[in-house]
């Protein structure tokens, strides 16, 4: 796991002649990047009772799937889901539709596989199960260290409950 940028490399480039340091702007970014790095993947077991047919939970999952963030999402957020974080900033959602098509997607992308008819096509055929879906969303490096997909639990973008809601939405009949 590449946990740190090669520090020696950073230092090597940062050193410059003192005479120009007050003239040419060379702000530091190494620290910003260091603090922003993706942590290694943890063990992401699907919690008990994760997948549900509760329509309210599925509505929240759907909303997080289809929207980018609370500031940009149209309409009211479903019951139990906020558009803002406690600190007043917009809550980020999954924006999954940027890369995936699914039932009712508006402008669905094709960077990731089409998730339409997921249960019929992938689960009933024994190719995938709920545990896989949960783990893939939590941290897609689970079966592909070079994945282009977003990381959702390790980054703390979502908590376990929210990942369960998104999983439930994907597995639901739409």
């Amino acid at each position, binding site marked *: 796991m590449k946990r740190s940028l090669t520090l020696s490399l950073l230092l090597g480039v940062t050193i410059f*002649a003192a005479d120009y340091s007050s003239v040419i702007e060379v702000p530091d970014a190494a620290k910003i990047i260091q603090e922003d790095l993706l942590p290694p993947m943890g063990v992401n077991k699907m919690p008990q009772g994760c997948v549900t047919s509760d329509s309210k939970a599925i509505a929240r999952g759907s909303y997080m799937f289809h929207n980018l963030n609370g500031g940009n999402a149209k309409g009211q957020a479903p019951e139990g889901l906020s558009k803002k974080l406690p600190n007043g900033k917009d809550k980020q959602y999954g924006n999954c539709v940027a890369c995936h098509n699914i039932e009712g997607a508006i402008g669905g992308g094709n960077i990731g596989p089409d998730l339409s008819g997921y249960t019929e096509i992938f689960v009933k055929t024994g190719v995938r199960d709920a545990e896989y879906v949960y783990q893939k969303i939590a941290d897609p490096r689970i079966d592909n260290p070079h994945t282009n997909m977003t990381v959702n639990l*390790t980054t703390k973008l979502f908590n376990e409950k929210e990942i369960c809601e998104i999983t439930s939405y994907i597995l639901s009949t739409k």
Partner: protein
Amino acid sequence: MRKILQISLCVVLASSLSFASEQFAMSNADRAMYEELMENNPADMMLSNGSELLDALGGDAALAKYLGLSEDELPVYLAGFPRYIEKFKMVVSIDQMLQAFMHESGKKPYALKSSDMFDMSSYVKSIANEQPINIDIEANEHMKKAYALGKEVFNTRRGGRGLSCYNCHNPGVVGGILRTQPLPDISAKGNASAATWPAYRMTKSKLATLQKRFQGCMQNALLAVIPLGSPEMTALEVYFTHEAKGAVIALPGLKR
């Protein structure tokens, strides 16, 4: 003084529109606006402002002299930025070089993020119009290091969604659709980012430099935004510029 590149510009833009999945690229209204702006890129005005700002410092001639070049040598030299400049003991982009030039001309340097600096540095890069990008990452240890750092920054997963630049800008996903936008090929000859930025960004109604565009992707993809001119930003520019090596500079670009 400034070469206007209507014809070559049109070729570049036409090719950038011909993505496999072009129906996704723009709404009809946006496309109509784009075609209109192609006739008359608003960034032309900003570059003429930049040209005037440089004139106040003695113009192209004074800049060439400052760099120890003849005016004829200036375009080819500028097509090689970012470059290591011995006097500064670091790899710099054009805007940083201009900060030193301003200082040594007895003026207070514009801040990197100021619109005057965007205008002036964009104008100065456009002096290299029609030149192929000739950055040399093997020129010395500093350039080698900057390239390596740029590549590392490009490939580093970070931020709220754990993405790297590479995740959206790799050969496997180029042309794929990300929320209705085709992912651009950042090294396609003739559409190479480093040869077409600074550009007028239609959706922002602003002139933006390549580094500013990097910040845009960082913001959108939830990577912590790093400051213009930081060694990591300059290194990213080195990386992108090397990817576009050989591509003919055609500025200002016009982007969605």
